[in-house]
C-alpha cells in the first residue's frame, strides 16, 4: 500500500522537473519530447549538459530513465556516464563489441550487479519515477518487476512445472493449486512451449533441448508478470531455428512488456528491436530508432561497427 502512495508523491515531484529542465533534449533529439501520455507514471529525467551520446536518448513514456550511470568493477570503469531511457512496450537492442558494457548496463537495471563482488553503480536509474537504488526499494521486489533471461539457458534442475511455478510460489502470486496450474499453463503458452511440454510437465527442465530450455526460462520469467524483461544474448547458444522462435516470441511479448536485449547479431537487433543503442568501451555512442541506426548511423564508430569494419 505505501508503495502506491510514495509512487504518486514522487510522480508529482517528477512532473515539475521533467517539464522545465530540458535544455539539451530538444537539441540532441530529432524527435521532440512528446506530451505526456495520460497513463504515464514515470517521466524522463532532464538530460545533462554536454553528453557525447548521439541521437535521442529520451523516449515517450519511459519506464526506465537512466542518468549519469557509472559502473566500476574494482578500479576498472565498465560504464562511463551513461544516459538513456527505456520505453514501455518496445524492444531496446544493445549492440557493440565484447566488453563494451552492454551486459553490465543490463544487469544494472535489476541490480544483478549487487551480486558481483567489487561492483559499484553510481548515478540515477529511475524505474517509474523511483530510483532503484533507493533505500526503500527492495531488491527482491525490483527483480519481480524486472525479469531476466540469461545468455546460457539456466533452468533449475527441477521439473518443467516447478521451474515455471517457482516465481509465483516464492512471491505468493497463486492462491491455490488450480491458480498456480493456470499461471504455469498461461506462461508456457505465451512462451510458445506449451504444445511441446504439456504431456511431460513433470520431467526435468534440463531434459529439454537448448531452444526449449531458453523458452522455459522466458516462461519462468513471465510467470511472475514483470514489467520489463532483460535478455542477455538469449540466442547466442541456440541454432538458427530456435533463434527464430525466440525472436518471434520477443515480438509477441513486446505487446505487454518492455524488453531490453543485448545481442551480438546485428540482424537480430534489426529484426526484433524498435530502438537500438550502440556501446563502445563503456560509452554509449549512439541511440535511436533501429531503422535509422542501421540505415543512417550518425556516429563514425556506429557506422564502422554495423558495416563490419571492426568488432
Amino acid at each position: 500500500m505505501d508503495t502506491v502512495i510514495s509512487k504518486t508523491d514522487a510522480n508529482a515531484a517528477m512532473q515539475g522537473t521533467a517539464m522545465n529542465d530540458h535544455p539539451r533534449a530538444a537539441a540532441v533529439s530529432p524527435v521532440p519530447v512528446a506530451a505526456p501520455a495520460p497513463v504515464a507514471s514515470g517521466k524522463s529525467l532532464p538530460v545533462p549538459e554536454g553528453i557525447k551520446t548521439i541521437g535521442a536518448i529520451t523516449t515517450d513514456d519511459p519506464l526506465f530513465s537512466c542518468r549519469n550511470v557509472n559502473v566500476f568493477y574494482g578500479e576498472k570503469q565498465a560504464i562511463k556516464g551513461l544516459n538513456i531511457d527505456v520505453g514501455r512496450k518496445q524492444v531496446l537492442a544493445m549492440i557493440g563489441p565484447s566488453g563494451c558494457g552492454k551486459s553490465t548496463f543490463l544487469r544494472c537495471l535489476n541490480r544483478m550487479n549487487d551480486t558481483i563482488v567489487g561492483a559499484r553503480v553510481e548515478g540515477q536509474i529511475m524505474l517509474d519515477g523511483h530510483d532503484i537504488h533507493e533505500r526503500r526499494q527492495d531488491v527482491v521486489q525490483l527483480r519481480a518487476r524486472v525479469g531476466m533471461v540469461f545468455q546460457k539457458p539456466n533452468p533449475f534442475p527441477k521439473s518443467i512445472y516447478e521451474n515455471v511455478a517457482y516465481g509465483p510460489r516464492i512471491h505468493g502470486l497463486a492462491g491455490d493449486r488450480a491458480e498456480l496450474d493456470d499461471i504455469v499453463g498461461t506462461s508456457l503458452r505465451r512462451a510458445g512451449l506449451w504444445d511441446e511440454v504439456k504431456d511431460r510437465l513433470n520431467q526435468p527442465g534440463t531434459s529439454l533441448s537448448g531452444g526449449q530450455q531458453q523458452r522455459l526460462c522466458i516462461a519462468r520469467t513471465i510467470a511472475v508478470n514483470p514489467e520489463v524483461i532483460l535478455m542477455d544474448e538469449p540466442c547466442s547458444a541456440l541454432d538458427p531455428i530456435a533463434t527464430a522462435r525466440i525472436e518471434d516470441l520477443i515480438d509477441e511479448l513486446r505487446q505487454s512488456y518492455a524488453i531490453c536485449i543485448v545481442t551480438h547479431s546485428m540482424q537480430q537487433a534489426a529484426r526484433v528491436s524498435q530502438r537500438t543503442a550502440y556501446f563502445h568501451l563503456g560509452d554509449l555512442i549512439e541511440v535511436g530508432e533501429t531503422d535509422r541506426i542501421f540505415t543512417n548511423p550518425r556516429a563514425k564508430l556506429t557506422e564502422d561497427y554495423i558495416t563490419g569494419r571492426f568488432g
Partner: protein
Amino acid sequence: MNSTSEPARGVRGAAETQARVARGLRRRYRAEARFRAYGILAVLAGVAFVVFLFGTIFSQGASVFRQSYLKLEIRYDANTLDPSGTRRPDDLVTADYQALVRASLRERFPGVEGRASLRKLYALASSAASVELQQRVVADPSLVGRKETVWLLADDVVDMLMKGVTQRDSPEAERRLNDEQLALVDQLVADGTLALRFNRSFFSNGDSRDPEQAGIRGALFGSFLTLMITLALSFPIGVAAAVYLEEFAPRNRMTDVIEVNINNLAAVPSIVFGLLGLAVFIAFFGMPRSAPLVGGLVLTLLTLPTIIIASRAALKAVPPSIREAALGMGASKIQTVAHHVLPLAMPGMLTGAIIGMARALGESAPLLMIGMVAFIVDVPKGVFDPATALPVQVFLWSDLPERAFVERTSGAIIVLLIFLLIMNATAVVLRNRFEKRW
C-alpha cells in the same frame, strides 16, 4: 611463396618438417610409455601395501570369530544354589556357580583325583562359564533343581591349542597346558564336547582381562555414541559455516584469515585436539572423564574443518547460473540458497560428512587424552557413561601379553575396517546416485 626470395630463417619445406616430426615422434612415444610404466608401478605398490595390510590382519584376526566351547551337563543343584530354599533373587545372584561347573567337570572325568590334578581339570573351563550359568538362573529361577546341557566358554589356553597356535610337541615347561591336560582335551575333542563354535561373546561382551571373555560390544557402543554426538554437532555447524562463508560472507581480510585458519585446523595433529578437550571440556566445564559426550565434542573439533572444506567445495561446484536464475526471479538470498544451492550441494556435503565421520571413527589419539582409554567392562548405556572406542580398544588389546589377545586385536581391527568400508562406500554411492548433472 619462396620462389622469389630466400626463405626466412625457420621456414622449411614440407618434407623436412615431416622428417623432423617423425624423428621426434619416437621420443614422444617412449616418454609416454615410460610415464605409463611409472604410473602402473605406483598403483601396484599401493595395491601391494593394501594386500599386505589386509592379508596380515585377516590371517591373524579371522580366527576370532570362532571360539572353543565346552559342552557340559550342568546340574543346578538346589543345595548349592539356594540352601535356604526361598529362591530369593539376591541369593541366586551371589550363589557359587563355580561349584556347578567344577562338579560337572568332575562327573565328566571321574578318574581325575587329587587337588593338583583337579585344579588342572578346572582350568580347562573359563571363569566366564560360571557367569553364564548365573545369568541363566537369574533369568529363569525355575532351572534350580533341574539338569541342562550347556555350551560354556573354554579357557583361552585351550582355545589357543584348538586353533593350533600352541604347539603340542613343544617342551612341556614351555606350554601353559601340561601333558595331563592335553590328554583331557583330546578326550573332550574326541567325543565332541569341546569344539570351535561361533564366538558370540566377542560381540556381546565388553572388555575383560580374560581373553576368551573380552568382546568389542563396549567399544562398539562407545564408538557409536561418540560418532552420534560428533555427527549431530559437526554436520549442522560445518554446513552452516560453509554456507555462510561461501554464500553470504563478504570477501575481505577477515574471511581470508578465517579460511586460512580452517585449512590449518584440518592439519593440526589430533592429539592437540585431545589436550584442548581435556583442558576445556573436562577441566573447565567439568564434564565426566571417559565419556562419549566429551569424545564426541573433541572429534567434532577434529572433523569440523574437514566438513567445512568439503561443503565449501560442494557449494563452489554449484554453477553460478543457478544462483543467477534464482536471484533474477526475485528470490531472496536465503531462498536462493535454501531452494536451489543447498539441494544441489547436499550430496557433496554428505560425502564430506561421511568421510569426516570415517576419520573420526578411526581416531584414537585425542580419545587417549580425555580418558576413553580406561579399562571399562560395562557396555555404555548413555553418553555420560564411561566408555572406550574401537581404535582405542585395539590399542589397549595390542598391549596385553596373552597370546589370545593377538587375534582379538586383529578381530577388532577387522570390525573397524568393515565399518570404515561401509561408510566410505556409502559416500561413493551417495555421490553417484544424487549428483545432479546440469
